[in-house]
């Protein structure tokens, strides 16, 4: 390979590593609530930050430990009953954040193929409009008094 080509490839590789591929959506404070090993489901929480200059829409979520991963919201009706609502899309305006928290919007992992234990980590990817993915590592934690 000519040296110039090699240098160009090297420079390209360095540039690809230096520039985050998912610059528009960052995930902070991610965690999964630990559940019993026989549990078929578990929930995840995080803050999703749109650091870009345009709105971003999450069109799907996936992880290798669950057959089906969804964004859900918890709605409270007039009688005080709580209902899960599947969010097919979640738009985050430019410069804004959306909090996924217990009893509120959250990630729902269903059909768990393996149940991660407290201390384990799980990568979860958010699929964005435009074809990009924003992935983050979610540590599995037992509940604490402050988690709501």
């Amino acid at each position: 390979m000519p040296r110039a080509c090699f240098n160009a490839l090297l420079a390209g590789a360095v540039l690809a590593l230096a520039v985050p591929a998912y610059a528009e959506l960052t995930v902070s404070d991610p965690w999964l609530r630990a559940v019993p090993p026989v549990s078929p489901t578990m929930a995840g929480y995080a803050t999703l930050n749109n650091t870009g200059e345009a709105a971003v829409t999450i069109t799907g979520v996936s992880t290798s430990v669950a057959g089906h991963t969804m964004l859900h919201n918890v709605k409270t009706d007039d009688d005080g009953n709580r209902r899960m609502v599947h969010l097919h899309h979640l738009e985050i305006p430019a410069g804004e954040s959306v909090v996924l928290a217990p009893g509120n919007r959250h990630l729902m992992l269903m059909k768990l193929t393996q149940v991660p234990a407290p201390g384990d980590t799980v990568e979860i990817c958010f699929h964005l409009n435009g074809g990009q993915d924003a992935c983050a590592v979610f540590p599995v934690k037992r509940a604490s008094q402050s988690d709501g």
Partner: protein
Amino acid sequence: MRKLPYILPLLLTLLVVGCGKQESDLPVNTRLGGEFTLTDHNGEPFSQSQLKGKVSILFFGYTHCPDICPAVLARVAQVYRKLEEAGEADQVQPVFITFDPERDTATHLKEYLPWFKADIIGLTGSLAEIREVAKQYGVVFIKDQEEQDYLFTHSDYIYLLDDQGRVRKLYPADFTIDEVVTDAKSLL
């Protein structure tokens, strides 16, 4: 000194009353609760009268619930651990009643609940039996048929029962742990 024979019984009476059980300020809820019989996580019949003699923390839910129910279970477990640290957990009984008997069999509850390390009794039964108990406690649950892995719309109150099985207080799902610990202690 001649008055001592008269004063002594009075002092003793005050001492006995003072050292006796303090009555809780929590009012008795006469509209909710009552006798029921379901099946426990060992597959044995379990009646509400078996809870008498202990303070109970009773709540409804289902194990396929990903968000609210595991959070409530974890918080009840924290209440239990605080009572354990105070040496009073043996007088308090957490009870989980499923409204999803189709999936929450006694066997599944027996596998699921011990993980929380809170000595939780899991109760299941026929749908008709569970509907009746839910009605007694004012609990609403509606199966969402739209999803393949169905969920429920449901109320999520937690009930504190005294040692006679009477409802003394209700809490929302995001209850304060110290509040329940304090209330439970007031009923011991």
